[in-house]
């Protein structure tokens, strides 16, 4: 069964060569020149990848550093990474929904309602904080299942379901918090620890070494397997380039963060979820189903994929991540209030996903968009704060960045169409 060749055929394979490919599209990827050529071809074909957002992020950092000398200081960067974790988790969830070609407008309200559940249970009811965290996450999960079921089974457009959720769950949040409006949590419990824990330098270095080491080992192992199976594999040069491209920012961040308090737990949680979701999307059958439903729901259905179940599960995961984001927001401010995730978090969460490079048109994107987009928006917020510019300027600049990102998305989609490389 395992090694059975699906179609046995007598004459053609005997005479034909084993690999008969169009030579124009063969890429050797052995020399630096061919590596560069491959990158150039992809960019021209509209497959920009994370390039625009990385360039944008570097530009933003340079501009703010020139305007304020403390922008790239360890303290500011440390604060920035802790600040983006909450909304970043919400973005990770929205990316899943965007991959389906849908939208979730309720992430802010779900985060707020879950935050209220967390605070009420931990403070008013007085159950252990870890149990309250689990309950808040479960709240998000259940809300998401509700949204997903209404969308997938009943057929209400996701836009409308989550618009109702935007209003309704904020109502729940207000109701739970009651007239006081604010519940303060203990500043020494597990909830507070989520965003106020920093690791000693050695631990940070260790995490960085393990992460980069795992990447190198798995890449080497995978490419060796490909080569052994007679498939086109990455050259050692390309593996080296990729490893360095990962190692420099990872070790660089740890170095900078160690100058202040050390690697923040919040950043580890956020990046951990991003990496986990990235692996899930790219390496598991479930992730493949999500992309398939986003690329063509009917094709996916005909391939035997349970489209409804994929849709419901995606909305469930998205809302659960929103709840986790809400927990991080509570942790950071030591309180759940009427304002928790009730303001710009929804828009920033969705904007970060698009700025990070996940398409609004479905089927294209990756979990790393949450990290990259979150960093861009976090850097803008932080830089403008240092320059003592208020919310009005920040909203306008964020809008501009979002517009640029969406324009790039639409343009690269047109370019892909022109180069016939998929919508």
């Amino acid at each position: 069964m395992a090694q059975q060749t699906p179609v046995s055929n007598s004459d053609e394979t005997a005479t034909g060569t084993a690999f008969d490919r169009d030579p124009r599209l063969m890429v050797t990827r052995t020399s630096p020149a061919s590596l560069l050529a491959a990158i150039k071809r992809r960019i021209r074909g509209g497959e920009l990848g994370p390039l625009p957002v990385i360039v944008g992020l570097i530009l933003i950092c340079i501009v703010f550093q020139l305007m304020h000398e403390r922008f790239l200081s360890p303290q500011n960067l440390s604060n920035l990474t802790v600040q983006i974790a909450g909304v970043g988790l919400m973005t990770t969830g929205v990316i899943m929904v965007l991959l389906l070609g849908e939208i979730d407008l309720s992430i802010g309200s779900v985060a707020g309602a879950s935050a209220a559940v967390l605070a009420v249970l931990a403070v008013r009811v007085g159950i252990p904080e870890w149990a309250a965290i689990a309950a808040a996450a479960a709240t998000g999960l259940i809300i998401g299942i509700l949204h997903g079921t209404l969308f997938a089974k009943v057929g209400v457009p996701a836009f409308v379901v989550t618009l109702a959720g935007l209003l309704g769950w904020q109502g729940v949040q207000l109701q739970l918090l009651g007239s006081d409006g604010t519940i303060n949590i203990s500043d020494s419990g597990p909830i507070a620890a989520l965003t106020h824990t920093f690791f000693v330098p050695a631990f940070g270095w260790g995490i960085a070494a393990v992460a980069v080491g795992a990447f190198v080992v798995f890449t080497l192992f995978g490419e060796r397997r490909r080569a052994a199976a007679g498939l086109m594999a990455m050259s050692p040069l390309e593996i080296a380039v990729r490893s360095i491209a990962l190692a420099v920012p990872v070790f660089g961040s740890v170095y900078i963060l160690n100058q202040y308090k050390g690697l923040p737990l919040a950043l580890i949680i956020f990046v951990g979820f991003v990496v986990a979701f990235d692996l899930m999307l790219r390496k598991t059958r479930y992730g493949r189903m999500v992309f398939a439903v986003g690329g063509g729901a009917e094709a996916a259905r005909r391939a035997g994929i349970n489209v409804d179940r994929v849709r419901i599960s995606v909305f469930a995961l998205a809302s659960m991540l929103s709840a986790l984001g809400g927990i991080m927001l509570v942790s950071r401010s030591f309180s759940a209030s009427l304002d928790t995730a009730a303001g710009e978090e929804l828009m920033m969460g969705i904007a970060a996903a698009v700025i990070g490079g996940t398409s609004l048109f479905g089927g294209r994107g990756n979990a790393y968009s949450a990290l990259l987009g979150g960093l861009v928006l976090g850097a803008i917020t932080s830089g403008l704060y240092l320059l003592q510019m208020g919310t009005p300027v920040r909203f306008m600049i964020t809008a501009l960045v979002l517009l640029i990102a969406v324009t790039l998305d639409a343009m690269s989609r047109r370019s892909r169409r022109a180069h016939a490389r998929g919508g």
Partner: protein
Amino acid sequence: MSRPVLELSGISKSFGAVQALNQVDLAVDPGEVVALLGDNGAGKSTLVKVIAGVNSGDSGDILWEGKRVEINRPADAQRLGIATIYQDLALCDNLDIVANLFLGVEKTAFGALDEVDMERRATELLDSLSVKMPSLRVPVASLSGGQRQIIAIARALLGEPKVVLLDEPTAALGVAQTAQVLDLIERLRDRGLGVILVSHNMADVRAVADRAAVLRLGRNAGDFGVEETSYEEIVAAITGASDNPVSRRASVTRTEEA
């Protein structure tokens, strides 16, 4: 005579007031190519959807290797061993060739997708079909119509099906690609698969089909051995009359030739 691998009897299906299928029977033996013929609106596509589990019939029985089965979802048909290749192809444009070939039947190792195994098998499969593809890692949106059709058929073969359902497989193809698809159909038959070929193209039907089952206005309108039946007889069954524009034209042409 071998037992039919798939046998439908008395299948009816209506959409509102429209009776798309009315007591339709159809059977296919292992190693047999049955052409499903009919004019536009005769119910061919509806019947295909019933077999594939996209729509289920209102009434009637489906027998699989002699046993009565229910096909309510595409997954049911797939599990039985019915592979369907649609007219509109139904590939996911954003996924590459390997991902499309293995869509819904991905190979995994330790819980993760085994891309190496899938790509190796895909290469073997396409090579065995003498199919030339630029690269197996391009999104299928970049392929031509013929290439997409080949990928769709190749995908069906990966599931080790017993019955293959082809809906107008050559409708949009060039001459060489049509010949390639017909070769492929013969290879499927030689492997002992039952093939149901929905087609408008009489030349294709005569080239590869063993039997021609004709539908007309949602009912069975004849079941012919292709070898011993004339073109006119089949056309008459499709249109419902021996005196029809197609056969009249054919007889005029023949008289002129003589």
